[in-house]
């Protein structure tokens, strides 16, 4: 039997750079209220959301990703040619083949990196980050680009008063590369397929086959609010704690908490349940960005670093959770 040479990568991996892209159009609650019977006060009290960004036809999944990815590469201080893998997490790129990652890699001038899309809903960033860390440490890629990108405005039922205000568009990206010491902790991740009905797309694309009776409405994301809230707050607080334990730290060691930006109420309740110390900076980007699914964590990370609320070298707990149901949590050192 031939002896296979072991793979050799970096000892450790870290996030080296982050970049975000928010669509130009800012949509306040007043615009949402044109189609639902609700109020600005109700929306803010239930979600903490005041505005969100909606993409124009030109701000495609690929275009937003190229912007965010380019910024992350520049922030990492490397060149696009050094990227060995491009991982794109999205649920709102409506052309399944080819993967949008290949187009993004090409437009970034990354040469011929491995490039593929993943579908892990609002946990997509954590899933991508975990894959990227594995690539860097086993030598499959010296640098990997992870992009979370969504145009959830395309999957929003604007006449549903429970969800019309929730979603936004945008792209967030990080570059993962070699490190001399651990800077991405073990990922605590998983799925609970028995709860797949709690967050879902209303219609399958199959319903739109030629000759069939197409549903009156385009597919949209729908959820069972109370069940999702309970799972997100109380089950995900346990997962967050497990990620801290896996990294060998406690909440006292944290500088920053970046949960998926689903809803301010979930964030507030998680902070309370986790008993996070006062000194921990909590990402609350959802107020002006809405829920951007896979893009929300890198977008929030980029904003915290840009505003100076967090700084390079800070220890951050990141946790994504959503449709699947799926989740992923890990502790990282901020770029």
């Amino acid at each position: 039997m031939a002896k296979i040479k072991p793979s050799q990568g970096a000892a450790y991996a870290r996030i080296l750079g982050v970049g975000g892209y928010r669509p130009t159009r800012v949509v306040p609650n007043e615009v949402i209220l044109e189609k639902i019977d609700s109020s600005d006060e109700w929306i803010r009290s239930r979600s903490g959301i005041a505005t969100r960004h909606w993409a124009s036809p030109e701000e495609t999944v690929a275009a937003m990703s190229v912007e965010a990815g380019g910024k992350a590469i520049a922030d990492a201080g490397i060149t696009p040619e050094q990227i060995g893998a491009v991982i794109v997490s999205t649920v709102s790129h409506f052309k399944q083949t080819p993967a949008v990652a290949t187009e993004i890699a090409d437009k970034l001038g990354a040469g011929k990196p491995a490039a593929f899309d993943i579908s892990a809903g609002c946990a997509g960033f954590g899933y991508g980050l975990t894959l990227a860390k594995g690539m860097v440490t086993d030598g499959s890629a010296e640098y990997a680009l992870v992009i979370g990108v969504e145009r959830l405005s395309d999957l929003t039922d604007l006449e549903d008063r429970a969800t019309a205000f929730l979603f936004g568009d945008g792209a967030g990206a990080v570059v993962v590369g070699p490190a001399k010491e651990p800077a991405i902790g073990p990922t605590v991740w998983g799925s609970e397929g028995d709860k797949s009905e709690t967050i879902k797309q209303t219609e399958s694309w199959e319903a739109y086959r030629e000759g069939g009776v197409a549903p009156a409405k385009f597919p949209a994301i729908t959820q069972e609010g109370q069940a999702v809230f309970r799972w997100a707050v109380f089950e995900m607080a346990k997962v967050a704690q497990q990620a801290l334990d896996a990294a060998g730290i406690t909440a006292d060691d944290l500088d920053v908490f970046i949960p998926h930006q689903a809803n301010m109420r979930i964030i507030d309740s998680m902070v309370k349940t986790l008993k996070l110390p006062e000194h921990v900076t909590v990402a609350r980007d959802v107020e002006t960005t809405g829920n951007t699914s896979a893009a929300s964590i890198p977008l929030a990370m980029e904003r915290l670093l840009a505003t100076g609320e967090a700084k390079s070298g800070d220890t951050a707990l990141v946790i994504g959770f959503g449709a699947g149901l799926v989740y992923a949590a890990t502790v990282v050192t901020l770029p």
Partner: protein
Amino acid sequence: MAATEKEIVDGLAEIVNEIAGIPVEDVQLDKSFTDDLDVDSLSMVEVVVAAEERFDVKIPDDDVKNLKTVGDATKYILEHQA
């Protein structure tokens, strides 16, 4: 030992007070969580989880929507507590 009706109402009053800031004396059997006590659907989930811990009872998501009043919740806990 299983809690009495009074203990459950008092416990719920403390929970509702802590989560939604409602005065404990307002939490009475005939009060509706949403209409009278201004506990919205998400706060209701927090109330339910706190009640589960306090009274050693499981309240599944499907049953939460049936707990309209403090009396409904009290009856549910009386019947289901371990």
